[in-house]
């Protein structure tokens, strides 16, 4: 009788053996993004973030009354200068998102979230963005839209943790895991959004390859 370990060894070796060498050459480097298109890219990202976040939230909770806060959240999820991050937005009182039904994030939920994020091997470091910082960023990004700015107040802004992801690590796993923790309203994988923004994003969507870039909270 073969031990299970021997059977595994044998079966895997046999399966691997089927994969022959086809002498594919080393692929060319990935083209670098030109810095000239920066502004357009950020604008596209803002748009994509709001579209994905709104889409997801609409699916989850068809309540039209406080969409402003969702818009604020998604719009404040833009790409920082230090490279893409995973943004984890915290529940605040009155959020229309089902996972925030119990009110704002509690102190212990916040500490737990921070600990879990810091413990993830993909995460290089995290920072906290408070309401005022979120509002400042939001205002800076939308100076040319006075109507939007008039409709919003700093209290519409969610607080968030921003996790820097190591090069080559799986940022989507971090975004998904964060959304499963209590007190989280939404987490957004920015690398994914950049990958899926025009022009490639359109092609990918047509081919049905679009990835999920934002994850609504799973609740308490």
């Amino acid at each position, binding site marked *: *009788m*073969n*031990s*299970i*370990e021997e*059977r*595994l*060894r*044998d*079966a*895997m*070796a*046999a*399966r*691997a053996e*089927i*994969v022959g*060498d*086809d002498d*594919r050459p*080393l*692929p*060319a*480097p*990935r083209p670098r993004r030109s810095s000239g298109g920066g502004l357009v890219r950020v604008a596209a990202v803002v748009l994509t973030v709001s579209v994905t976040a709104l889409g997801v939230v609409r699916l989850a909770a068809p309540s039209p009354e406080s969409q402003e806060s969702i818009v604020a959240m998604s719009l404040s999820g833009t790409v920082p200068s230090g490279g893409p991050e995973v943004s984890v937005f915290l529940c605040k009182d009155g959020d229309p998102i089902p996972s925030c039904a119990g009110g704002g994030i509690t102190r212990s939920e916040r500490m737990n979230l921070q600990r879990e994020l810091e413990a993830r*091997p*993909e995460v*290089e470091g995290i920072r906290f963005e408070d309401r005022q910082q979120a509002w400042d960023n939001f205002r800076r990004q939308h100076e040319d839209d006075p109507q939007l700015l008039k409709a919003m107040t700093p209290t519409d802004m969610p607080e968030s943790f921003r996790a820097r992801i*190591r*090069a*080559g*690590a*799986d940022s*989507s*796993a971090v975004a*998904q895991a964060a959304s499963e923790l209590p007190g989280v309203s939404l987490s957004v994988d920015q690398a994914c959004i950049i990958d899926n923004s025009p022009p490639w994003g359109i092609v990918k969507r047509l081919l*049905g390859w679009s*990835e*999920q870039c934002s994850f609504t909270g799973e609740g308490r």
Partner: protein
Amino acid sequence: MDSEILRLAEPAPKVSAPPVASSDAELVAFYRRHRLSLVRFAVLLLGDQETAEDVVQDVFTRLHGKWRPGVTTIAYVRTCVLNGSRSILRRRAVVLRRVEPVAGLADSAETAALIGESRREVLLALARLPRRQREALVMRYYLDLSDAEIAEVMRVRQSTVRSMTARALARLLRELGDNA
């Protein structure tokens, strides 16, 4: 970021020319030496060869200009392949709204004919395992890595590797025990 906190899993390849000038040549040599084994590794994680090849090509596309002797080790590249495979599986699960067993590992008639019924049973059971358990088994019994090496690639503790392996083996034994 190039400051990956990685211990050396195996000695860095010998470099004779200065590292800056030779980094591309080194990448080519590394690619030639390890590509097939990385594709085979990815096949066992993902099931189908085409996707496995894409994952490996994608990893090498990203390695250009990032080659650091002693830092870009086979362990590091395996971690990249593992992450790439996980992303694919997660995307499939999102599209299907459930986790499916890994398709293509042993369910095609062609594979069955090539490897035989008994091995096919083992692979089908492997395809049904939870993702992390399958990953641990592939690294232990196909790549012959130690607990420490598997822990490094998966970025978990060695004790976690041991418990995942034990649980996976117990489950396979339950499923295959009758005709072992």
